């Protein structure tokens, strides 16, 4: 169901990128895209380029910062890292997501909630 996958992505890609950077530390765009593909079993990313649009947005908001560096394979790559503001935003977004997911879980499955 690619349609539903992409619509989920619109709202959650920022959160996934932030979480990835928190979990793995500074990482280049390709690495982030690969990680999201792996976790989402290739269902969440329409294409890897979408990650870069998300990264531009997050840099502009100063939630992440970008810096040119050298990759494990000795290649020049742009590395993204979480900022202090980004960390706070991630906490807020995670709490919000868990609250929404909890509510949605109870709505969709009333028996398990009671």
């Amino acid at each position, binding site marked *: 169901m690619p349609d539903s996958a992409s619509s989920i992505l619109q709202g959650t890609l920022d959160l996934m990128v932030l979480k990835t950077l928190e979990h793995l530390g500074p990482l*280049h*765009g*390709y690495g982030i*895209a*690969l990680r999201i593909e792996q976790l989402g079993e290739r269902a969440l990313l*329409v*294409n*890897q*380029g*979408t990650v*870069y*649009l998300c990264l*531009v*947005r997050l*840099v*502009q*908001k*100063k*939630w992440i910062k970008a810096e040119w560096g050298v*990759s494990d*394979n000795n*290649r*020049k*790559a*742009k590395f993204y890292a979480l900022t202090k*503001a980004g960390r706070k*935003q991630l906490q807020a977004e995670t709490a919000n997501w868990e609250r929404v997911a909890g509510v949605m879980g109870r709505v969709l499955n009333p028996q398990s909630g009671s």
Partner: protein
Amino acid sequence: MLAFFNTIAARIRGFLRPGDRESDFDREMAAHLEMAEEDGRRRGLTIEEARRDARVKLGGTTQLRESWRAASGLTWLDGFALDARLGLRMLRRSWGLTLAGGLAMTIVITIATVAFVFLDEFMGRTAPPLDEGDRVVALQSWDVEAHRRRDVSRRDLERWGATLQSVKDLGGFQTIERRLTIDGRPAEWVRVAEITASGFRLARVVPLLGRWIGEGDEQPGAASVVVLGYDVWQSRFASNRAVIGQTVRLGESIHTVIGVMPEGFAFPVNHRYWIPLRSDHAGSLKAAPEGAVFARLAPGVSLDRAQAELTTIGLLPQATTPSGRSPAQPTTGDARRPRVVPYTFAFTDDVERGELAWQQRIILLLISLLLVPPCLNIAILVYARTVTRQEEFAARFALGATRSRIVVQLCVEALVLSSAAGAVALAITRPILFQIGEIIRRLPALGGSLPFWVDFDFSWRVGPFVAGLCVLAALIAGLVPALQATGRVLPVALRSLGSRTRIPLGATWTALIVTQVALAMALLPSTMELAWGNLRPAVLGPGFPAGDFLTARLAVDSQRIPTAEPDLPAFAARVRDVQIQVIRQIDTEFGVSAATFATAVPGAEPLTLVEMDEGASSGGSVRRYVRANEVDRSFFEIFGVPMLAGRAFDGRDFGSAATAIVDQTFVRQVVGDGTAIGRRVRPVAAPGAEAGPWYEIVGIVPDRPANTSQGRMYLPAVPGTRGAAGPIHVALHAGTDPAATSRRLQEINTNLDPILRVDDVRRLDEVLAESQMGGHLTSYALAIVTLSVLVLSAAGLYALMSFAVTLRRREIGIRTALGAQPGRLLASIFGRALRQIAGGVIVGVALALVLHRWLNIEVEGGWHIPGILPAAAIFILAIGLLSAAGPARRAVRVDPTEALRDG
């Protein structure tokens, strides 16, 4: 919220550095693809497969780049910059449109900006340039019924000063005129501020030398002191620092100089001399602009709170307060109310505060509306050009550009033009404002200088105003034709893309161009006659050597006019005696045949409405505006004016006989055919008002000054008959040394009864030049407006003709190939357009006739030019033909082969 602002800032940075941004993106994509390829190869793919796989997973790079640009920059600003560049290119290409449209826009934006600065200076500014100037206020007595500012009694001033808590440094001033005598210099009349000591505390400006006026100086019996302005100190005392302690004579009393104020200080209005307002001064303080009560709002107090407190305290009744009566209770019928207003507002006019803001807005709106006619003209040209660019737009439309995108592009192009016009307007407004400032400064009421808060400089408000005008101009000139063109042109152009079928200009637009021609034709004769009428006196001269004459004004010292009604007749008799005395003295000094007097300076006489007795040429009573002067017996002799018919004034005319002498223009305009001698004329105060007594015309003289458009009527003048305050003017031969004569006239002043003064001594040619200045400005304004209408008409006609050629290019090609004669070809192509122009000219001629009849050109200061109407019609037709010359050349040069291939 912070994230939002960060995003905006980052996008602006991205917009400003597009090159860095793009290369960064390219490098990042390259790195991504390399890493993805390496991964692919590790998974066992070939190089080609790995490369393909990496690109597929990344997605379409073009689309990604566009999305990334949209996310990282300011897309609309990028588009705007591109449109602006295209607009500049179009301005260079369509230089005809640029010149014609730019000129018209510049003229209107300049007029509107000048008006805006003027209104802003005199009406809009509320804070004078003083320390915390916005806290300085004026307290007034406002007559709500008469809608006028009234004098404030000295007792009210004291009461307000003693009781008001919401203001401090309360005080007052009034302007008086005094004859200043400094040792060794001729006396001169100066404007002096009689001011309370608090005025200096309020202004918070430290004296350059000495001290301010203090409370002690206001006390009865205190020594008379004066504080001087910087200019006075420089010009009269040669910047001598030992001026303190020296004495000057102001009127009847000797004043000791106690201080000199720094450069630029002119509080309360435009003063250079300050003397204390004595506390025993029993009269009232004159209402603004000649006087005012000023104060500074106490810290933390608003204008409204001050008003509330002042309303509670109120004004004393106008009559003497009977003991035991509350002063806060106004007497019955007393419509005066105290009010607090921002300081500079007090000097604006007799208006309420809100009212002024509305007046200002309405004036600005009307001025801004001036933009509409020239912008509509430009809209015609822009539309015409847009239609010629139909293929360009159709191609863009086909490639995916939306209609709104094309509309925006056309609007931005118009904005580029209007912005250029706005920039030029801003540049030329400053010198124009300077000139206007100089003219206003010379007004006698201002005493040679403007209020100290008026500098005719640009405030920050001018920027948004001009920017707003530019946007308005761009919307009218760009949006209307853009919507029309994209609505009409695009579908046709799209269908015909490739076949090159062209759409016609459209009936509405053609009609507009023809209307424009009619308008130009209608306006041209009247504006030419008006302009010539105004310029004629300067070009052809006054008909006599005006530079050989000096004029001087004998004016009553307004301070000495009694306020009590019963004293007036005795005062008037005294004025009359002194006037006779002065005239005798001048006669003795310069010779009877050298000097004369009149109630107005020749050439600057007031306009008066007069009517003839029955039997005038038109059969009924004719009413016309003429210039009227009252002159003494020697007036015509001194100016060397011969009698053309009838007789000069003699002894009987200066008694009870009511006689008049008129000039040739008067006879032509008012009397018409038949003899004027023996006919009767009388002044009418205003249309509909009761007429004055009849005067019998006894003589006819040539026009003096000559070449003006208004007739003149002379009545015999008797000193003192103009009432107590009416000034009279002396005119005399300047002799071989005009400067010496002028000095001697000034000196006569010092020996006179102080109720009368001799001032405004000037050469008559200067007076004439000044009286013509307004007319010259009118002429220039008319010339500029006419020129812009003509230029726009010519540009419109050019567009019309160009269309005729472009539309029929194929037909021209065929006919040329078939051997058609160029003359016949042109006649058939332009025949229709020329018929339209001729129609416009005919309608214009009819309108011009109506306008001429309705306007009464000579009364408005114009001069009838014989044959102006046919000349104007020929001129307009010539412009039409000239506009057709370029397109005609193109038409006869059309290459049949190319035209057939393209078409």
